[in-house]
């Protein structure tokens, strides 16, 4: 019983990190029509920026995170939009997808060449150890990761649902033309989306890297999981991405323990096939609508 609770907590905690990446992915798709196949690398790179900041500037993890957040929002947010998405967007969805794949490869190889091909240890932001809740003991790190991710997800939801800027972003996602006709500053809202995605990816990097270590090819599995989580949950629903991420995190952890660690990477793919076969619109998706 205690094992199951522990697994559940660690599964939800891993899943919450996946959800951050998946929600950013969905947000980009909805407001801009960008399917970002470099999303995994968008989580990998901020980890190396944090490492570089800690090593070169000799700052602590928190300062390194803030530096990485700013750099990522500039590079993976604004510059990504201006230099890659804007020029490619009018060529259609597919050329843009291919461009993001190329960008992902470029980022991966650049980190490998200019930083290291070896996995780098990465400091956890929470203390190690376990805490007892009644009869079960759970990892403090898991709880801390979960807490940070939940706060971030709630903040994002509050921003989208309760603020005027958030509703303008929803308007852009639902009907860009109508939003423009009403005078919604569409370009600015699109920029916000890219900045939010970069911020979510940086946060995911902070939370996931202590477990996976910082490695140039971390993005491969992370990007795939974010993509699958978004599809499984329903491509056009933010809460779908959240649910998809959590679900994959849980399945991942339970598979590793009860079936085999060798199969853990196959499980999300099997889940993807099952969902596409039996519920192609995703768990939460409905045809022809978008919701942030």
């Amino acid at each position: 019983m205690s094992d199951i609770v522990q697994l559940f907590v660690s599964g939800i905690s891993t899943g919450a990190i996946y959800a951050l990446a998946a929600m950013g992915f969905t947000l980009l798709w909805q407001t801009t029509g960008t399917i970002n196949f470099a999303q995994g690398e968008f989580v990998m790179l901020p980890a190396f920026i944090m490492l570089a900041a800690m090593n070169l500037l000799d700052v602590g993890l928190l300062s390194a995170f803030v530096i990485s957040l700013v750099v990522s929002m500039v590079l993976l947010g604004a510059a990504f939009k201006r230099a890659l998405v804007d020029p490619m967007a009018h060529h259609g969805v597919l050329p843009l997808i291919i461009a993001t794949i190329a960008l992902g490869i470029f980022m991966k190889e650049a980190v490998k060449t200019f930083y290291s091909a070896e996995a780098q240890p990465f400091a956890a932001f929470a203390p190690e150890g376990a805490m007892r809740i009644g009869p079960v003991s759970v990892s403090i790190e898991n709880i801390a990761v979960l807490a940070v991710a939940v706060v971030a997800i709630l903040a994002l939801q509050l921003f989208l649902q309760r603020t005027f800027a958030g509703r303008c972003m929803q308007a852009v996602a639902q009907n860009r033309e109508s939003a423009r006709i009403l005078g919604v500053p569409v370009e600015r809202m699109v920029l916000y989306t890219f900045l939010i995605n970069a911020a979510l990816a940086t946060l995911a990097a902070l939370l996931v890297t202590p477990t996976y270590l910082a490695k140039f090819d971390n993005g491969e599995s992370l990007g795939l999981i974010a993509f699958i989580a978004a599809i499984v949950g329903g491509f056009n629903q933010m809460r779908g991405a959240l649910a998809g991420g959590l679900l994959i995190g849980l399945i991942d952890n339970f598979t590793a323990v009860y079936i085999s660690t060798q199969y853990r990477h196959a499980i999300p793919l099997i889940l993807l096939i099952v969902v596409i076969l039996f519920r192609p619109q995703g768990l939460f998706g409905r045809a022809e609508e978008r919701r942030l």
Partner: protein
Amino acid sequence: MADSNIILRTEKLVSGYGATTILHGASIAVREKRITTIIGPNGAGKSTLFRAVFGLLPAREGKIMFRGEDITGSAPRALLRRGLAYVPQGRNLFGELSVAENLELGGVSLGSLALTRQRMGAVFERFPALKLRAGAQASTLSGGEQKMLEVGRALLLEPKLLMIDEPSIGLSPKLVGDVFALLTGLRDTGVSVLMVEQNARAALAISDDALVLQQGRLALSGAASEILDHPEIGRLFLGGGLKRA
């Protein structure tokens, strides 16, 4: 027509989509505080004219003047602030958002949520049915209510000129009457209305002026009653089968 009471004028406007040119030098003049209806066959460029004026399509050549100022190339946001509003054809609501949230978005170019809220009160007064459904998702409204919400959303900015494309599409005859009554009501409070309408006879009947577009150019303009009684126009554009005596 004296320039002083012209609210919107296009001069030799050329525009279209991609490589396709739809407007081949359209020059129109719209008078203030009137209802003006644009008629013409499909593909004459009626909707394209609206989209070009509203900055959604580039003006490749020519000039657009609104209230005496050159607005050629201006973005929708700037035009809304100058008093030009546009209600396009079809469904333009954010179906997932509530009626109130849709209205609120109509005020985005006002730059003040307080002012938007205040104006929303006036819109709700004009459309009590919307007030009753303020919290409902816009997609759950009836077709007529949705059109009212779109118009209400445009009126939030208290425009000087409302451009409305095919307001009667998909509405029952009774609701079409309501929409036209709304437009005449607006005209009577000093708002200029420029309309494209499939239901040309009914639209001309409530209009002051009419413009006839043909192949991307102005073919004819005049009082709506004259155009309505024009035998050739009647045959060409108002339904050939219904020959008027």
